[in-house]
């Protein structure tokens, strides 16, 4: 398959440089997807992830310009954790289904971004722009190197701590988990906070990679979720073979390779590539849900 693409793309697909680009493009979605594993596993389907990444990226850039890379990472982490904790609080206290409340929170975060953007323009400036500063974190090899400690940390948190264990338990069987003395609300909230950590790290790398990220409105940030969502589904469908933490990496790199191949084959990005993505979400969902057929709910 790869060879066919390689030949069809004038031998540009399987080159060292292109493979580096593929992995590099997978780094940010990987961090975001790792975060989503914690929230989605516990049943907190949060559709405001994209809006959070945009806001957190801008805040990371803002602090980055003041305090360098430390500010970049700190800003991303602080914004990611705060906004996910806020989401967790809202989801759990209002009892509104998380995917509905998440859309509401996405609109709020998008509006905050738009207000900030308008204020910046009115005062004669622009949204946070890194220019040539602080770009190493988003580029090879540092972005890829971030994957290694990231994978270790997410594995430990998800598989070797009571936070991860409780998140998995709550998502699998709420009744039994509660009977075993675990507070489901606390478990879900902590899952959201950990999700915020990885969204924050992804946001810092994202800001370093793009340099400037313009806030969006009209729920357009929701489209950001499709690639991580597909990666989560791919990871879930491979859970019998790979740990979900590794499955996520495979998923995001596979998706990155797919888009890269489509680009090299001349498929326009933003249109047909998006169609392929949506179709892929449906396809992977069908495959990952296939085993559920016949269950009496």
């Amino acid at each position: 398959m790869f060879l066919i693409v390689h030949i069809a793309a004038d031998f540009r697909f399987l080159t060292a440089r292109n493979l580096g680009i593929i992995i590099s493009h997978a780094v940010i979605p990987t961090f975001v997807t790792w975060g989503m594993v914690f929230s989605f596993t516990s049943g907190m389907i949060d559709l405001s992830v994209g809006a959070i990444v945009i806001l957190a990226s801008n805040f990371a850039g803002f602090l980055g310009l003041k305090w360098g890379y430390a500010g970049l990472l700190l800003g991303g982490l602080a914004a990611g954790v705060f906004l996910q904790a806020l989401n967790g609080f809202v989801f759990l206290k209002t009892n509104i289904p998380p995917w509905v409340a998440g859309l509401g929170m996405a609109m709020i975060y998008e509006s905050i971004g738009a207000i900030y953007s308008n204020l910046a323009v009115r005062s004669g400036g622009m949204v946070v722009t890194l220019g040539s500063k602080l770009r190493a974190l988003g580029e090879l090899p540092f972005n890829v190197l971030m994957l290694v400690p990231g994978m270790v940390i997410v594995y430990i948190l998800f598989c070797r701590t009571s936070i991860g264990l409780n998140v998995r338990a709550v998502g699998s069987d709420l009744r039994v988990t509660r009977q075993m003395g675990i507070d489901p609300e606390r478990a879900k909230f902590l899952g959201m906070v950990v999700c915020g950590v990885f969204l924050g790290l992804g946001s810092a790398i994202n800001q370093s990679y793009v340099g400037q990220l313009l806030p969006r409105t009209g729920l357009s940030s929701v489209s950001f979720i499709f690639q991580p969502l597909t990666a989560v589904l791919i990871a879930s469908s491979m859970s019998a073979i790979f740990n979900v933490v590794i499955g996520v990496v495979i998923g995001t790199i596979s998706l990155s390779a797919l888009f890269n191949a489509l680009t090299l084959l001349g498929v326009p990005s933003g249109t047909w590539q998006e169609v392929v993505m949506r179709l892929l979400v449906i396809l992977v969902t069908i495959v990952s849900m296939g085993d559920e057929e016949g269950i009496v709910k």
Partner: protein
Amino acid sequence: MTARDTAILRVENISKSFGPTRAVIDVSLELRAGEIHGLIGENGSGKSTLLSMIAGIHARDQGSMFKSNRPYDPLSPAQANEQGVSMVVQELGLVDGLTVTENIFLGKTQQFARRGIINLKRMREEAALAFASWGIAPVPLDALAGTLTVEEKKLVELVRALPTDPDVLILDEITAAFSHNNRVALYELLAELKSQGKLILFVSHNLSEVLALADRITVLKDGEKVTTLDAAESSEDELKRLMVGREIKETYYYTPARLADQEPVLIADGITVAGVLISVVTESSRRTSTYKSWGKLYMLDLLWVILSRAISAVDLFFGQTQQISSLAQASLSRFREKRFRPRHGEV
């Protein structure tokens, strides 16, 4: 010394309702250390609800409980566990998405954690030790609970209940899932626990089993306590009479002979489930839910699945043609799992 003095667990005038249904009505029990206490009654007699209140799963509406002469009021199974009361519930009580080891220590992982990180190796060793030390057939410790058979799941639940070294162990219909070998192992385990001064509250529909195991037996009917009697001075016929409230001359359960002159409401033929061929099943009794064998319960589950898919389901219990719209309405056993999906055959 009075019975009250020797009672490890005392339940006084306890009641519980679910909406308009009075599940347990004013029940009092004196349960002693070092005894196996059988609890019997028809389906819906309130056994599981009573035990669930003792185990902290359900809150009681009224009445009081005392453990070792101290007020006992668990708000959750975890709290009951902390006070020495463990229960293996009738329905499946494992988290399918976790491994066997994780299920055994769910909610108790802090003992294996150092700086917040769980030592999985030590946890696995403890789980293996628990199986071995209690003489329970081992189950793959790294397997996801969702991949286990019902019998294996029940074994894991039993092991999970034991490491806390409870004073009171409640077993609700656990033997129904067990093979002969595992039943024998369980009986030996219960005898060992009894000799250690533990109280075992034991529920089973198998009356001969209850008579053989229990020191005393309490009979419930329609949520109320009928009586508590010494097992040595009782008989199956007497227990049946007390459970049903009238004389039962032959067998309590419906038999094929008694159904011979009735029209079957359902015939399932040639259905293969997990490699087992079930040739013909007919049933027109109102008492399907009193089947003793889990294999038959699976069959009912399977039939329910088939019917719900094929014809929106006919009420199997009452032979009526009413439509079943939900699982609760069907009120079949609670062990419906995808492994019972039919692969071949017709209804």
